[in-house]
């Protein structure tokens, strides 16, 4: 009785599907043009998660300019980023997958490469388009089996953002060390504003991980951070405890609404001078009115231990291709084009302009903010991605839970770290 309903439904679904197809036969063929990869001919499908209207039209420009070159045909298919994230494993394992997909390099791409779901594109990396790419970028796009599986396109940076006019009005200077930073927080508090905005409420709890990432990079170094996220260290180690000791020093200066507001609302709070500054990625500029962008500036996350080389967070976006694609040669041609300075400039021109090109010869949008950001990443000794990109999408929720609990009850840090380690262990051992 319990098992019979699904079989009935399955039968009805099948019968309904067949019935509908039989009733209106001949129409299926007309709708197959969308997915494009039915046969080995036809255009290359690019499945994109850049669904905001501006980014979407920038991607369309990029695809159009590739089609105009005449070396191949491509087709853009945009899916809501949230849908894309949950459906990505389905796309890659499907028998008839999209050819090319937007996603992240490093550990995330590697986890798919290990399952043989990604196309090996090592041969195109020796082509002239890739001549200027740095060793760090090459490492990022290489799987643990030593194959190149990714083509990077753009990256962005994280920094502590503030309003220039407010800092000028209050006579404040950009800090470089942790002590200066805490002093700055004190001064901001005396002006009656919450010194540090966060934006880890709503559905953007992951924003809090940026603080963990940066403190860990500054206290323990980038390599320790990566090893920790890969499961080579434990979250209840004394090194991690030191990270939270530092965080506790800054915690009294956090906006009490930090875990209630989503980052987009936290951005509004920063622009309205209700908070003094905010550690955030440059994508937040999309949520700011255009006339206020000139008033925004940032500084590097303060130095805590001068012995540790300065690493920065520079999350890279780009493309990988499905291993099951039916037109390998065409996909590789398209990926080569995506790596050119020309292609990356077209995208940056059409998008909101805070992204940086990965091709070193490509021009950025040229604003003062972007120039400063590019200099920040280029001077960094090492570049990390972000918590979820350096680990996996599965580990991110454990961090969200732990950090949200820490922000609410910092005194319970020992039990929080024990729980975090236990939750993370379950994911690493999968």
């Amino acid at each position, binding site marked *: 009785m319990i098992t*019979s*309903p*699904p079989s*009935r*439904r*399955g039968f*009805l*679904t*099948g*019968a*309904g*599907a*067949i*019935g*509908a*197809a039989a*009733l*209106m036969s001949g*129409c*299926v063929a007309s*709708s*197959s043009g*969308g*997915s494009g990869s039915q046969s080995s001919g036809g255009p290359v499908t690019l*499945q994109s*998660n*850049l*669904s*905001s*209207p501006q*980014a*979407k*039209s920038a991607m369309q420009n990029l695809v159009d300019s590739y089609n105009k070159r005449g070396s191949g045909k491509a087709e853009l*298919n945009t*899916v*809501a*980023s*949230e*849908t894309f994230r949950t*459906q990505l494993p389905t*796309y890659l394992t*499907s*028998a*008839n997958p999209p050819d090319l997909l937007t996603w992240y390099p490093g550990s995330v791409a590697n986890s798919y490469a290990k399952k043989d779901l990604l196309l090996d594109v090592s041969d195109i990396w020796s082509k002239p388009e890739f001549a200027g790419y740095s060793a760090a970028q090459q490492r990022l796009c290489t799987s643990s089996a030593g194959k190149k599986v990714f083509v990077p396109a753009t990256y962005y940076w994280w920094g502590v953002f503030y309003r220039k006019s407010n800092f000028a009005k209050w006579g404040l200077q950009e800090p470089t060390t942790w002590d200066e930073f805490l002093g700055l927080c004190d001064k901001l508090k005396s002006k009656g504003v919450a010194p540090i905005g966060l934006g880890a409420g709503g559905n953007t709890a992951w924003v809090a991980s940026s603080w963990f990432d940066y403190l860990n990079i500054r206290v323990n170094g980038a390599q320790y951070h990566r090893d920790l996220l890969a499961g080579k260290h434990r979250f209840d180690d004394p090194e991690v405890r030191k990270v939270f000791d530092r965080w506790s020093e800054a915690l009294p200066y956090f906006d009490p609404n930090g875990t209630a507001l989503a*980052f987009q*609302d936290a*951005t*509004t*709070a920063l*622009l*309205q001078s209700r908070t003094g500054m905010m550690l955030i*990625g440059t*994508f*937040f500029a*999309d*949520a700011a*009115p*255009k*006339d*206020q962008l000139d008033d925004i500036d940032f500084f590097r996350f303060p130095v805590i231990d001068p012995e540790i080389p300065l690493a920065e967070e520079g999350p890279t976006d780009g493309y990988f291709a499905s291993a099951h694609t039916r037109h390998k040669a065409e996909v590789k041609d398209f990926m080569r084009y995506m790596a050119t300075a020309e292609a990356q400039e077209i995208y940056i021109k059409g998008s909101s302009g805070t992204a940086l090109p990965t091709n070193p010869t490509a021009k950025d949008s040229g604003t003062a903010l972007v120039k400063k950001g590019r200099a920040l990443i280029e001077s960094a000794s090492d570049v990390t991605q972000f918590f979820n990109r350096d680990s996996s999408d599965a580990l991110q929720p454990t961090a969200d839970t732990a950090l949200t609990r820490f922000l609410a009850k910092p005194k319970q840090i020992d039990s929080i770290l024990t729980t975090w380690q236990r939750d993370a262990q379950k994911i690493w051992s999968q």
Partner: protein
Amino acid sequence: MTVTQPSAPTTVRKDRATPPRSRANGPVSRKWATAGFHIGASALSVLWLLPIVLVLVTSTRSFDDIAANGLGSLPHSFTLDGFRQAWVDGGQERALINSMLVSVPTVLLSLLLASMAAFALSRYELPLRRTLLLLMLGGNLLPPQILLIPVSKLTELLGLYDSLYALIGVQVGFGVGFYVFVLQGFMRAIPAEIQQAAVIDGAGPWQLYRRIIMPLARPALAALCALSFTWIFNDLLWAITVLRTDSQMPITASLLNLQGQYVSMWNVIAAGSVIAAVPTVIVFLRFQRHFVAGLNLGAVK
């Protein structure tokens, strides 16, 4: 407000039944009760309408206004650009057509199949018909989520994945059970004498179904029409399960597409929601009478 109508006669009648005692304080307390009722009901309806008003107001604001002043502030701008962006840039035009291409055939096909099945199950002594009906009811109690992956794989196997036919098939398959259950209950209440009279006049089963039962079942069909249209039109789960291409997505999925990776333009999303709500509101207003009647279908025998 239709709610006040039933309560008015009862208070009058009660008043008339006990005239001597309540005459002294009756009108005063009744006035208070009426005032309390109206204040309470108004507060409730305001509370209920608030989200809708918020969406309507947000849809006419500019994004810079929302970003500078916050989503909850009073509007500082008025523009219909959000609607244009949702309709043109957001691809809602194509999505609305897709939604219609799915909803209308699905409603017609599933009601046709369901009415035939209900006719047979309610008017003829078929073996195992109780078991069959219980199965259909049991199927409705099952959460559809557990069948997402089987359905996705099945459509791929049948070569229907990423086409609107897959969506129509799935929607028909999942709807028919419930529609049969409701229609069967309704058709069972039609007197057997009508059927017998038609049989004496020489009507076969097909004629019985077409000429006798279907016209009599019209109220139930109209109610189900409105209900199923709303369900199918508002469905998101199956659409993103069996479709992949953005040009195939129905309006609910395209609404999701309006959200950005990091930043969401709330004015465009609100405008898109307003556009997406229009067809269901039209259908509801058109079928309102049947809709309310349909809610108590089978409640009274």
